[in-house]
């Protein structure tokens, strides 16, 4: 059947079976391979995209269910060519390792921030509950989402020597290193431990 889908602001007319999953249409027909498949049963969240403002698992959604709706994939986040704030914070906070969960994490976090611009850490963890990551332990991811919401915390403070480093590296084309994400615990946590080093 012919499907008219709006993905990342662009209208697509594609031919697909009625049983086609949204993820397959995105990946195989539109070439949007940023959306990943990790389990095929809506458990890992690597395939998360945003449909009409809500985060959905595109591996358990039919393409026809997206008819007439706005689909946003990871490729649509930096549509202007510049990373959006959420992507930038994932980079800065070291929230990316193997990166296979990252697109889904970004889309779940994006949907959260669209609905709740100032989420608590608990809100963030809950919103990411359906997105599995096997690399990070989630700490840096939660910190990145918090930072993207504009809620600066102790975790985001750049230590003095880092400021010097950043100043030193103000060479065009050179990206600054990410701040030390664990320079201090999150502001909400009780200060029960001495510093690491």
């Amino acid at each position: 059947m012919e499907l008219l889908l709006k993905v990342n602001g662009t209208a697509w007319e594609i031919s697909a079976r009625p049983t086609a999953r949204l993820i397959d249409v995105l990946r195989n027909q539109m070439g949007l391979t940023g959306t990943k498949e990790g389990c095929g049963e809506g458990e890992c969240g690597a395939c998360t995209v945003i449909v009409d403002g809500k985060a959905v698992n595109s591996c358990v959604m039919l393409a026809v269910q997206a008819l007439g709706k706005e689909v946003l994939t990871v490729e649509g986040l930096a549509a202007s060519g510049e990373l959006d704030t959420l992507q930038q914070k994932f980079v800065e906070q070291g929230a990316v390792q193997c990166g296979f969960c990252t697109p889904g994490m970004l889309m779940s976090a994006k949907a959260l921030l669209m609905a709740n611009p100032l989420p608590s850490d608990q809100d963030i963890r809950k919103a990411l509950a359906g997105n599995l990551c096997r690399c990070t332990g989630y700490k840096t991811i939660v910190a990145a989402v918090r930072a993207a919401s504009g809620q600066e915390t102790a975790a985001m403070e750049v230590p003095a020597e880092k400021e010097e480093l950043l100043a030193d590296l103000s060479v065009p084309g050179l990206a600054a290193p990410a701040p030390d994400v664990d320079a201090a615990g999150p502001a909400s946590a009780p200060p029960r431990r001495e510093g690491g080093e």
Partner: protein
Amino acid sequence: MSDDLRYVGKSYPVHDVAQKVTGELIYGSDLNFPGMLYAKLLLSPIAHGMVRSVDSSRAEALPGVLKVFSHLNSPADTYCRARLYPGQECAIDETLFSEHVRFVGDRVAAVVAISQAIAEAAVALIEVDYEELPALLTTKQALERSDVLIHADGNLLFEMQIESGERPDISGAVLVSSTTATPRVHHAALEPHVCVAQGHSTGGMTVWTTSQGAYGVRTVIADLLGLEYHKVRVIKAPMGGSFGGKTEFIVEPVTAFLAHETRRTVKLLFDREECIRATMVRPATETTIRTACAPDGQLLELEATTTLDSGGYASSTPDYADHMCKKVTKLYRLPHYDHRCQVVYTNTPVAGAARGWGAPEMITAVEIHLAKVAKRLRIDPVELRLKNLVQPFDIDPVTDMSLGDARVAECLERGAAAFDWTARRARATGKGRYRRGVGVACGAHKNGQFGSFAEASNMALKMNEDGTFELSASLHEPGCGVVTVMKIIVAEVLGVHPDLIAASEADTSATPFDYGTFGSRMTYVVGACAQATATELKASILAAAAEILETPLEELVAREGVVYVAGDERRSVAFRDIARLSHMKHVPAIQAATTYYATSNPGSYSVQFAEVEVDCATGLTAVTDFLAVGDVGRAINRGMVKAQFQGAVQMGIGYALYEHVDVDEAGRSGVDGFKNYHMVNAPDMPDIDVLIVEHEGDDGPFGAKSVGEVAMVPTAAAVVNAVNNALGTELSDLPLIPDRIIAALAANEGGEA
């Protein structure tokens, strides 16, 4: 600590982070080629039996199907999925397709078709007649039933004994014994296993692998297919995690065979169920430990027996067992140590390489045992360990090598203070529904393979005419920042920012030989190679500058991409000009190619502290707080070192509490996807604090040691010990699923009544 380092010790994202957050990075599972074919495997539905017949006629009649392969039309040659180099001693017991199927998930046949959907439809049309054999599902069954052979040479695949020291006088000693079972676990890298292979009409092939060792993939494929090594090009593709699960060559040989036969491009992409059933699991182990210690807690001896379940094939499990026997003496001073280990074939999923390579299994058993010893002796668990831990530059009596600047005792002392261990331990656990407890565990791991084989790495480094650098190395980025670490090391040596350096991943036609990215060898061995190569290149840069500036070498200094004449800094030449002039004017060439041989293998250490809350009504355990301390020598990429601990603790909590791939009485696991394989998600994770201990007393680059594996070694034991502290139990069958906790509580109450 030397503070004059410019780039080492700061925090950097993984090298390909920009491509990862935009979704533009093409992973192995994203690869597509014109005219590409799709393979789908038929996996054995039975645990043990012989394939009587394979009827592929209906499958091959399906439009779009090219061919069906099984043992009937493929080589019967055996290979070892874990072989790293030709001639390596390993158990060679696997064929491309099995006539004798040995576990649910064994490869029986493969369809090659023009689409994934057709390949899947065709697999369902293959008719296989099996003659069932008795399925031996536990190591005990397999050892008892000598009448049923899983492999021709018997079900006992491997056994060994290691002993060090003299049997001491243990009269008056306190004897404690315990048995710990660790589960079969799915690695659960988020990206499934995948391979794309392109068969060339000339007989050669190109293979894209998400393996951790491209050279091993090459030699296994080439030897199996009878190809010359230079005609098999293996390229490491971006991968979505591994954790050891992609170390061995599981999908590569079969995909290469299908591509070679069809002379086409073939893609084999597993789904999650196939990953769970048909790749590899962390081995299930059972270890019984008996210790004798003086009443003050001084350990006099430790005797251990371990049985390791290899599953249907050997993979790397004999080596795994060997490593299990070499962990305890890296951690504790033992006047006498005796460890016997058996590795046994069973008709269960194949076991093999997993993060920590035997250390999480063995150390979990030891650390649960020591909690029991402390309880018997009424000694604080931290105090007990401090009496027995190894000290810097102790000699490991088992390997006869120095443990290097082993700072595990310092990790324990600093961690106990930071965690407020004594006060927390003294706190009441509670008697109501929710009970709290704290646990501690220590862990040790290694730094590469020195002592096992000729541990070495090779690299080449060049400078471009714009002053940028390219490191040619066979790296395999699993996602933990291997490439970034090499860039930082080279940057530090050359005195230029890491962004000016590119480091390659493995491509057997282009990058120098290296065993692969595993075995905690990256930072310590491969990183040292990067340091040596950069040091050599820097020397040639200075030699060229000496000619250009007409100044003796010893009067030159290099800083931030410029070589200056000391004391007269108006005279200088930029790196980029040196590169340009070296091409134009034949001043000495700027190049370096180095082989670095490791000469030591110190211990890396972690000490971890867990606090848990157990719901006695449901049996559910929540980890409420966690501190990981690591002796890593020096953090090269500080943020990523901490992130390694955070991720490892997440994996270790799952190992302790949730994850297990059990099989039913027919040998089939009920785990067929993530829906019934529980992993720790964001709300379940405690806030992990990480404390890094740095002393730089060893041979790694800038003193650095391994991190990624040792980080998860003590985690499970810390959690289990906390649960036992909360409940007054001595649980040691992992994972501590609610059923086991409820049963233990019931038994305790029965005992008290």
